[in-house]
């Protein structure tokens, strides 16, 4: 039974249930009036029929691959399982290929595994089909029982809908938990091979040299300091550009520009925020980096073709609108009375802005800068395309550096098996990234909220 026909069964039974419930309610002749309209009873019956079946079906389908994989493994002879990991991986690939193409090969073990797989799949599907039918029909039967009319159908439906709404709002939490666990688990497995200390304080990063499992740790090639430093260098360059420009833009637009200019300039600048990062990456790699290199060489500096400067500048431009719109918000929140106080003493506008408005808005601006920093740290495409892979331990913006995100991408986009230390290292880096951006965000949001309350 294919997945789509299973869903169709659920749907069909649900429809029957609806008709049954509605017809019964329409033909109801009791001593008291029904509490809800007939179609409410129809829906209620349909819910009884399809929701449990649907939940079961989804859960079943989610865990079926795991079960089937286990079945394949069990079918393999001990010798096959005792092979080295790479070979086993290859073996599995062959089996999956054979299953997909549904053709027999000449390897007895593979054929056996395929057969075993197909048998298990058949079992699994028959069982779930039966279960779906049982659940769907019992819903209909419940709808046929006397029970139906004792209920206030509309209220019951609304309870179900409300539960659904609540569930949906919980997706955010599930996502967060999912992120934490998926990153954490793999990272912990990584830290079983490489010590946390070596990872966080080690100054040499060359995961490519430790392909073999037994080399991990001993070679100490998972020292992430160059990545952290590179990330901070590029982010710092980006912030050095974005913070002054973004802040001055916000100041000019909110304190000086006419309403008309502001109304057209703000959306125009927002365009910068709407451009996909891959476009910035292209621009940084193909236009800005060569340009900087040329300029640098014309004054006798040696500039790497993938300099941190190029990536940093372009990233800075990308976050200008981010900084400016956040600053704009906080600057506008400074009460006019504050400005009046300063102007009334004979201060010029710039004096008022520099000495009163900005200090008053400072907490909010700091919060905005932290958010921008978290943006810069987590930004991926620009650095993947414009910064290098060279894990140099340097703070020279003219040299090539690499970042946490670049390494995550590099480690995970090759043809890797999932469990190699290289891929696990990517998750360890992901964990660092998640923690640092989370901390920055939480602090920033806290500061901004405190600031807002202050001027409420």
């Amino acid at each position, binding site marked *: 039974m294919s997945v789509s026909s299973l869903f169709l069964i659920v749907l069909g039974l649900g429809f029957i249930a609806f008709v049954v419930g509605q017809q019964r309610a329409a033909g109801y002749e009791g001593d008291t009036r029904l509490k809800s309209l007939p179609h409410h009873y129809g829906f209620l019956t349909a819910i009884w029929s399809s929701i449990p079946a649907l939940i079961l079906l989804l859960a079943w389908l989610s865990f079926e691959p795991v079960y089937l994989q286990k079945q394949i493994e069990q079918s393999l002879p001990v010798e096959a399982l005792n092979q080295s990991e790479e070979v086993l991986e290859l073996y599995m690939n062959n089996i999956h290929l054979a299953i997909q193409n549904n053709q027999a090969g000449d390897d007895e073990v593979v054929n056996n595994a395929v057969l075993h797989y197909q048998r298990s799949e058949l079992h699994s599907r028959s069982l779930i089909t039966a279960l779906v039918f049982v659940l769907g029909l019992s819903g209909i039967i419940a709808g046929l029982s006397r029970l139906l009319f004792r209920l206030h159908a509309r209220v019951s439906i609304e309870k179900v809908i409300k539960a659904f709404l609540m569930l949906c709002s919980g997706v955010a939490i599930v996502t967060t938990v999912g992120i934490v666990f998926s990153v954490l688990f793999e990272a912990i497995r990584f830290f079983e091979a490489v010590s946390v200390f070596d990872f966080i304080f080690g100054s040499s990063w060359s995961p490519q040299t430790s392909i073999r499992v037994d080399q991990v740790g001993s070679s100490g090639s998972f020292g992430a300091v160059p990545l952290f430093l590179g990330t901070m260098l590029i982010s710092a360059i980006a912030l050095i550009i974005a913070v002054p420009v973004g802040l001055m833009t916000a100041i000019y637009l909110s304190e000086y520009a*006419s*309403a008309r200019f502001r109304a057209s300039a703000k959306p125009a600048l927002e365009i910068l925020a709407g451009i996909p990062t891959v476009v910035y990456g292209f621009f940084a790699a193909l236009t800005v980096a060569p340009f900087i290199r040329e300029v640098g060489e014309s004054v006798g500096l040696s500039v790497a073709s993938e300099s941190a400067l190029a990536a940093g500048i372009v990233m800075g431009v990308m976050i200008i609108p981010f900084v400016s719109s956040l600053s704009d918000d906080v600057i506008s929140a400074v*009460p006019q*009375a*504050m*400005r*009046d*106080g*300063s*102007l*009334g*003493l*004979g*201060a*010029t506008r710039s*004096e008022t802005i520099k*000495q*009163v408005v900005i*200090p*008053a808005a*400072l907490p909010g601006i700091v919060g905005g800068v932290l958010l921008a920093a978290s943006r810069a740290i987590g930004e991926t495409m620009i650095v993947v395309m414009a910064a290098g892979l060279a894990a140099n331990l340097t703070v020279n913006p003219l040299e090539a550096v690499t970042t946490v995100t670049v390494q995550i991408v590099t480690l995970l986009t090759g043809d890797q098996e999932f469990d190699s230390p290289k891929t696990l290292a990517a998750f360890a880096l992901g964990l660092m990234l998640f923690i640092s951006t989370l901390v920055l965000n939480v602090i920033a949001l806290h500061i901004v909220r405190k600031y807002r309350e202050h001027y409420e």
Partner: protein
Amino acid sequence: MQQGLTSEAGSVAGLNNFEATIGENLIDDAKISVRHADVFYGEKQAIFDTSLDIGRNQVIALIGPSGCGKSTFLRTLNRMNDTIADCRVSGSLTLDGEDIYDKKMDPVLLRARVGMVFQKPNPFPKSIYDNVAYGPRIHGLARSNAELDEIVITSLEKAGLFEEVKDRLTAPGTSLSGGQQQRLCIARTIAVSPEVILMDEPASALDPIATAIIEELIDELRENFTIAIVTHSMQQAARVSQRTAYFHLGHLVEVGETSRIFTNPRHQMTENYITGKFG
């Protein structure tokens, strides 16, 4: 809402004749002279053909129902309304004979000479000391730190705040109580040694005790400054001012010695207002 009420009250009494200001609106040797001033916000006129003199070392109280243009009038005197994009002023306004709206009159300089205290205390996000030192610093009035210290201390003393804050001059201005904050704002204004101080309902956000202190202060300040104060409280106007001007719907209705206005108002609307019939 307020506006609706007042105009209704006015029309019910049939008193909407704003022909000319009653009383002694013009005096000799005025510090500030306003002649035939009209103020517009865009299309909307907020002040109509108003002429008024403000005397030297005097306190003049501006009273009237909410929305009648008191704040607007006050803000025209030091060009604070320059900050409002669509605000226009016409007529002649002079400070010691100099045209306030002349091209050559610099608004920065003008505001250094005509200071302003606002309705809500608005200390800067700085220390108490820096709040008071703000004006002298931007204008470069002190040549040394010692001189600046002296300006700050005398200003705080004049504002009657020094004794209360002398041990915590580095504490933020916002850490003070409402009444103290308002006196800080007054000290801040005095520190620039203006010739005129405009006060827009300076005590309306304060409790009675703080209000009493401020009123006392205003009376003392009269020695050195010319003061125009907007107030909602008749008692306050009576206590602190020498002259009183009554505004209604943008028109200056009546001006006179404070004692005379409160004992013997000539215009029916003035009487209605001070006896609490509306406003």
